[in-house]
């Protein structure tokens, strides 16, 4: 399990400047689907207050295939208002990775293109969502564009609807951690679909940290880039995300999802150590009730996975976790599945300890996420048992309560981050 890395230096194609909106999609669809997408993008842009010149950026060759046929089609549209631009496709370093992170390699080149074009707004679309007219109709596209184009927001990120047992890594680690660190309550802090203002382009394209260091080889996390600089962020409700069959194992997925955030923590430490508490960020789009769970979850297997971890991985955990945490994990391991409850404070401290171990390289990073997996499954068991009993609304309440605990336990992280030797297990 390696750190998630994406494109090296972005290859920036020649693109005409003076563009208002650059809309990029990281895969080349069929001609028909591309034409339909272009139509929806134009319809979405037409709902905005003023007229925008738009470039639709797609990977591939300009003179052939779907881009060529779209260019021919565009001749009938208003001249200069819409054009298609091709760019060399970025290859994903993790083709077998988490499906919705598969296009992370395109984020940096797309931002570089937008910077060269001097675009006002860059919108990067998730092809699994954007190519489906039902999931991403024109009004929803407009919802993504508008806050960045006309609302003065620097970053617009989607907020996907989900059931109580969806996106558990995001709910248990990414959301509460980002919220506690940067003070912004961003439900979906890691994603490859967003709209960004011109201010964000150079930071995303060059991988610049607040202290001026350059990490062009890392996966950019736009939410952290914006939140750590105090830029304006908002969320838009995008409905449910399409579910693809995932073949990746959980440890690898944890590395791909939490790894970039842990790396960002190192770069932005001076910024997040100053943040106290958290605040809501503006949210647009019609709110919907949380989706109900399809059925109750049998927590027995998750508890057994946790117990197996406690029996075998204590020696490895002892390098990362302080003795008191190890003791609490041992106590948890003897509880029957019906009574299994992992306290929020314990989980928050464990995540913080693992983030610190990631920074200190206390153990190899590929081992680190493997060692975290059984504890994470213990949290899943605890959460699922409570969510089974309480329903979707209660599940949302559990996540909020967990996030508040992450906020309150942040002092522990700051203390360990500043003086790691003091707590050296």
């Amino acid at each position, binding site marked *: 399990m390696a750190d998630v890395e994406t494109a090296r230096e972005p290859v920036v194609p020649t693109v005409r400047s003076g563009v208002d909106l650059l809309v990029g999609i990281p895969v080349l669809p069929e001609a028909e689907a591309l034409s339909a997408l272009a139509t929806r993008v134009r319809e979405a842009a037409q709902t905005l207050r003023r007229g925008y010149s738009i470039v639709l950026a797609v990977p591939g060759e300009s003179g052939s295939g779907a881009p060529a046929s779209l260019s021919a089609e565009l001749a009938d549209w208003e001249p200069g208002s819409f054009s298609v631009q091709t760019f060399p496709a970025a290859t994903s370093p993790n083709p077998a990775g*988490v499906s*919705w992170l598969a296009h992370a390699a395109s984020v940096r080149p797309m931002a570089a293109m937008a910077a060269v074009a001097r675009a006002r707004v860059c919108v990067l679309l998730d092809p699994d969502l954007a190519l489906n007219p039902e999931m991403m109709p024109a009004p929803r596209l407009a919802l993504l564009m508008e806050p960045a184009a006309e609302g003065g927001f620097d970053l617009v990120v989607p907020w996907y609807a*989900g059931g109580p*047992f*969806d*996106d*558990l*890594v*995001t709910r248990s680690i990414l959301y509460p951690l980002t919220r506690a660190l940067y003070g912004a309550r961003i439900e979906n802090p890691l994603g490859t679909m967003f709209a960004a203002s011109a201010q964000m382009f150079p930071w995303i394209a060059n991988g610049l940290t607040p202290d001026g260091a350059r990490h062009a080889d890392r996966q950019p996390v736009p939410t952290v880039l914006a939140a750590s600089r105090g830029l304006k962020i908002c969320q838009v409700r995008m409905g449910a995300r399409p*579910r693809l069959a*995932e073949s990746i*194992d*959980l*440890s690898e*997925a944890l590395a791909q*999802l939490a790894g970039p955030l842990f790396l960002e923590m190192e770069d932005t430490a001076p910024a997040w150590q100053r943040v106290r508490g958290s605040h809501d960020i503006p949210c647009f789009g019609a709110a919907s009730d949380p989706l109900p*769970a*399809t*059925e109750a*979850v*049998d927590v027995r*297997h998750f508890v*057994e*996975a946790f117990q*197996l*971890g406690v*029996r*075998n*991985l204590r020696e*490895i955990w002892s*390098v990362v976790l302080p003795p008191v945490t190890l003791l609490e994990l041992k106590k948890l391991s003897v509880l029957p599945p019906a009574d299994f409850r992992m306290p929020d404070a314990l989980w928050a401290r464990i995540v913080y300890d693992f983030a610190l171990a990631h920074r*200190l*390289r*206390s*153990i*190899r990073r*590929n*081992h680190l996420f*493997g*060692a975290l*997996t*059984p504890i994470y499954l213990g949290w*899943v068991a605890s959460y*699922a048992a409570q969510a089974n009993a309480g329903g979707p609304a209660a599940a949302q309440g559990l996540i909020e309560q967990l996030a508040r605990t992450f906020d309150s336990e942040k002092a522990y992280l700051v203390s360990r981050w500043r003086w*790691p*030797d003091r707590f*050296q297990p």
Partner: protein
Amino acid sequence: MWFQVHQALQQSLHRAVFMIATLLPGVVALILALLVSIGIAWLLAAAARRILAAIDFDVRAEKWRYANVSELLPASAPSVLIARVVFWAVVLAGLFVGIAAFDAASAIGVSAYVLGYLSKIVAAAVLLLVGLIVARVLSVTVLINAVNMNLQYARLLSLGVKWLVLVFTAAMVLDHLGIARSIVDLGFGILFGGIVLALTLAIGLGSRDLVSRSLDREREKPAHEDEVVRHF
């Protein structure tokens, strides 16, 4: 006859005295070289200890304690280990100087053999170090992956892999040093095969219940569980 006995004794005494007279300067040189090297070694070790203490080496080393060398570290502080290595390296160097001086004085030719063997010892030490690190990395990797695959015999697998690598390393080291090559070849084959067989039997027979419980657990796991719980 008494004359011949007397003459034989005299010649023998003469040879012994001559031998002692020939070796004595070499022995004195050897002892002198050793004493001087011990003195220098003591000074250098003390200097190394002071320098390492000044740069907080023990605290820094603690941070990469787990970096797959933990088994090599002594119970005492790492700086003490380094100081000891410095001390014994200088003493060893003094010993070789002494042996060379002894050789020059006696013309016996020990030093060429010893120095020739030294390169083999260094290479064997490197082999051993690499083997220990590889054994540690592999055993931890196997342990974590086996736990995450929900295998009840994860620790057994991890131990098996660790000892396979260690036995393999030991065989390579002994073979490189040229110690009892034929026995090492045979012993390695028996031991390596034995460990594999023991693992197979342990998993196949001894841990049959354990394995079947693991498989049952996987079978019992609802096929749609991944549909209900989505981690990402």
